[in-house]
């Protein structure tokens, strides 16, 4: 008899989703002008979770005006008072973290294990960290009494909905800005629950405004004349469009965009931990991570051995109900994203790479993709160059450290990279040559509010997190 884990589902009862949500503007939920709505579904079941308002340009205008009005008082508050609001928010998030984790898992499709152990703790930590900065900005290295910018227009993606909200809102509020945030079309719910947290924290109205909608809503927000600061996390294509939109204005811009991270494994790597790091690098959040280690660069001399270990390890991944506490691989966020992953993976096969995936059953409903790896990939393959944003690993080989660095850097992107070696000098030499904003040596996909995050090249500019993250929201 085998050791089969019985289902261990997290209870849905901890979260109460309303049948419909309006826009959160000036401290109140209001209907969208024109009354348009759209449905948000659970990607693991395709069940409709709620109906959400489609914010129009007029709604964006209302929200920006509310934020502008709130800015005067908010920015004039003593930093210590702003800090206390943020501390309150951090604490309320901790209190409600199980509810928010379940909600996020429902709306996004990612495993509860991740929302519970990664997203939510990081969300609370981010608010807690930036809360402490609010009354210490004089010491941040940007001169005495650095001033906020004004109204921040923030557009976030669907892969870490609440965490990306935290990365945007916490530093913005700490520095004295007010915010209009547009969550992703497919994952609006946690931002709307965050609005309720703002209410519980007693945050002055208009300081945080949440306008749900699709790409047109986001475009209206970044183009709005009353916005002083634009922060965007998402695709490189949209990032470029935003950069063109704000060209010639005084709007300060930061962009966190795509990536095609190289995870470099040398022959002297701690192999068992490297295998874990590779798995964590590309299968965390179904690979829907901008800093995913989607290109495995393995030293040719250990290629076969490493691939054997990796395949064995992939065979133990548990795919299925995201609410099950033992699920490692959840659902892909949307049909659209699934189609993109499928198309790119198919191109890998068509271009001659060898495809492998462990045997595992996919649920009937919802959007699913097996954890997949491709061997025999070269720099010329699409799957080595384009961001797949899914659980697909491209395996390439190298012979020397120089070749590893050259291949790793041979990309339009420059967000993340991994280095696996037990030799300290080699790690430092390689890290010093990689054109990437975040480098994980003998680890991968670690995040912390104190640690700056952001890219080189077409992965965007500006940093989120740490002291560096303040700069994006200060007039410096």
């Amino acid at each position, binding site marked *: 008899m085998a050791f089969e884990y019985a289902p261990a589902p997290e209870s849905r009862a901890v979260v109460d989703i309303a049948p419909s949500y309006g826009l959160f503007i000036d401290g109140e939920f209001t209907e969208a002008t024109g009354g348009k709505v759209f449905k948000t579904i659970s990607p693991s079941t395709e069940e409709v979770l709620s109906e959400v308002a489609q914010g129009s340009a007029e709604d964006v205008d209302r929200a920006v005006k509310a934020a502008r009005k709130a800015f005067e008082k908010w920015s004039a508050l003593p930093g210590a008072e702003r800090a206390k609001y943020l501390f309150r928010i951090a604490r309320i998030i901790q209190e409600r973290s199980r509810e928010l984790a379940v909600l996020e898992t429902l709306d996004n499709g990612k495993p509860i294990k991740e929302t519970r152990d990664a997203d939510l703790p990081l969300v609370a930590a981010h608010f807690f960290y930036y809360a402490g900065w609010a009354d210490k900005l004089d010491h941040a290295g940007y001169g005495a009494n650095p001033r906020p910018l004004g109204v921040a227009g923030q557009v976030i993606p669907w892969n870490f909905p609440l965490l990306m909200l935290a990365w945007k809102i916490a530093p913005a509020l700490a520095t004295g800005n007010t915010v209009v945030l547009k969550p992703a079309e497919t994952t609006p719910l946690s931002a709307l629950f965050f609005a309720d947290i703002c209410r519980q924290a007693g945050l002055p109205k208009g300081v945080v405004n949440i306008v749900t909608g699709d790409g047109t809503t986001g475009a209206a927000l970044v183009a709005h004349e009353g916005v002083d600061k634009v922060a965007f996390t998402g695709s490189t294509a949209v990032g470029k469009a935003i950069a*063109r939109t704000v060209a010639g204005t005084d709007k300060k811009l930061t962009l966190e965009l795509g990536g095609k991270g190289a995870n470099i494994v040398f022959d002297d790597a701690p192999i068992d931990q490297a295998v874990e790091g590779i798995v964590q690098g590309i299968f965390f959040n179904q690979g829907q991570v901008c800093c995913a280690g989607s290109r495995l660069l393995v030293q040719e001399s250990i290629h076969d051995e490493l691939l054997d270990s990796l395949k064995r390890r992939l065979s133990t991944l548990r795919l299925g109900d995201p609410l099950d506490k033992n699920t490692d691989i959840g659902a892909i966020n949307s049909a659209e994203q699934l189609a993109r992953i499928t198309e790119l993976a198919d191109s890998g096969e068509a271009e001659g790479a060898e495809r492998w995936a462990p045997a595992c059953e996919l649920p009937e409903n919802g959007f699913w993709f097996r954890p997949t790896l491709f061997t025999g990939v070269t720099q010329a393959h699409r799957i080595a160059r384009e961001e797949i944003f899914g659980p697909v690993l491209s395996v390439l080989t190298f012979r020397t450290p120089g070749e590893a660095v050259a291949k790793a850097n041979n990309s339009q992107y420059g967000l993340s990279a991994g280095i696996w070696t037990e030799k300290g000098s080699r790690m430092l030499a390689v890290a010093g040559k990689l054109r990437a904003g*975040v480098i994980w040596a003998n*680890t991968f996909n670690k995040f912390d509010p104190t640690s700056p995050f952001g890219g080189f090249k077409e992965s965007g500019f500006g940093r989120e997190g740490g002291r*560096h993250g303040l700069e994006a929201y200060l007039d*410096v």
Partner: protein
Amino acid sequence: MSERLTVFKTYKLFVGGKFPRSESGRVYEVTDSKGNWLANAPLSSRKDARDAVVAARKAVGGWSGATAYNRGQVLYRVAEMLEGRRDQFVAEVAEAEGLSKAKAAAQVDAAIDRWVWYAGWTDKISQITGATNPVAGPFFNVSSTEPTGVVAVLAPQESSFLGLVSVIAPAIATGNTVVVVASEKAPLPALSLGEVLATSDVPGGVVNVLSGRAAEIAPSLAAHQDVNAIDLAGADAELAKELEIAAADNLKRVLRPQPVDWAAQPGTDRMTAFLETRTVWHPTGSLGAGGSSY
């Protein structure tokens, strides 16, 4: 006895450590503020800009890989060389900007002092911009800054020398290489600066100086996929917007034009504008698996 006829200088571009003419064979007339002819300056083409980018890219590895101390010494050497040719630059600036000798001298002195100031920054800026970050886990986490790479610089139009130095020096102090488009109407101090750089231990390609029409050269620099950043100091609002839009194609770092008093003491922002922060994580672990208390 007749007055001695002076020897004119042929002003040339400075690209990859060499002094080529424009590949287009074109020149344009440079006059002083009263309209008197001063020289014919090369009228750079887009191809000249492309060649300059190639030279700048080639120089990135060596310059950014040099020790910060070494870069500081090289930049200081530039100041030494300028000091020796002070009178020449005073004369050029006076003619270019229509200033009195005394005012031009103040500009040149300030420019020389600015080189010294930035020379001293090379091995300090990363201590200001970096950090060790106290992450909540068993990891050593350090952020340090790296040069962005190749920076296209549109030098200020009015301040032909002090302004020029004020945009070149910060970009290269941190390890970037630059392609600078000199002030359109007053390019001569910039072209002469090339001669100083060539004799100051600055590796070829670290600074490349083009003269000509910003509106003609800059768009190709802004759109160039192998240029990492652009400083729009010398662009007017309309050109700046056009260039910023073009720069989005490969998400160049863009420093927008802003009113600057070049004579005032600068901050660090012209250096930090062209730096990338890289954060490296590494596990720390403990002394032993046994929970040793040694």
